């Protein structure tokens, strides 16, 4: 890879760090961008659904998120370009179709005491801990944008959107966060 080949996030220009919105007390919302990250979509081949889920369970050093019928996102930080894709193709090629989505999606992490309140302005998914525990993923719509939503902690969620919508979506998300005061880290 050439020196100059640095991955540039779709939000590089907009997601500026700092404290915004209502300024009283601790921020209700904390936002950050998960970038660069490797994202590979794995779709079970015909009749391989079980095989795939067991194989994925066996993987280490990656996170696996449900992403639809017999489909999963496999994520990992700090891998070289195409590396995770290659690795998975090697390991899973027989049972799954793989597609590198690392550049196609932008992942925004939303945390803080008000994270549920902000997300409730967008998604019809019931995020009550009993209905949507940590580790659960859902595909839904927020502000007219398709969102892949994962609860990664009690008050922490990851929102993954198509790259092209990232700026618009960020705009909506931050506006909705203003009343609680938000921090971009």
């Amino acid at each position, binding site marked *: 890879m050439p020196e100059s080949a640095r991955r540039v996030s779709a939000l590089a220009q907009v997601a500026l760090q700092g404290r915004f919105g209502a300024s009283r007390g601790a921020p209700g919302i904390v936002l950050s961008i998960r970038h660069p990250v490797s994202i590979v979509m794995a779709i079970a081949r015909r009749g391989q659904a079980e095989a795939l889920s067991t194989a994925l369970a066996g993987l280490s050093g990656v996170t696996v998120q449900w992403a639809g*019928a017999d489909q999963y996102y496999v994520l990992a930080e700090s891998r070289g370009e195409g590396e995770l894709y290659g690795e998975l193709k090697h390991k899973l090629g027989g049972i799954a179709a793989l597609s590198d989505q690392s550049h196609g999606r932008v992942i925004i992490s939303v945390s803080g005491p008000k994270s549920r309140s902000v997300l409730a302005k967008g998604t019809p998914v019931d995020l009550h801990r009993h209905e949507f525990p940590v580790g659960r993923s859902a595909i*839904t*719509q927020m502000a007219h944008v398709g969102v892949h939503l994962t609860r990664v902690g009690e008050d922490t969620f990851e929102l993954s959107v198509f790259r092209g919508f990232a700026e618009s979506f960020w705009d909506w998300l931050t506006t909705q966060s203003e009343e609680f005061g938000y921090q971009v880290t």
Partner: protein
Amino acid sequence: MLIKCPHCGTRPVEEFVFLGDAKPERPASLDPSAMDQWYDYVFLRDNPRGRIAEYAHHAGGCRSWLVVERDTATHDVHSCVTARQWALARKETAG
């Protein structure tokens, strides 16, 4: 209207796109004599008042095509399976 997607759980109607009656079955024959079956399949609908099994695409969710059994007079949703299950079952019975 709430629909229980087999993959995503219960979701409101805004996440779905509907494509009408799932009963008409795509004919197998390409013979000109099958033209009427094709015409039926593409253009004619029972359009019942009451229960209908209809295609719904979970476009705002997992993107699966579903077959929802719903009452067109009351909008009550009775059941929901994947179009895949529905099609395979139908091919089964067709033998």
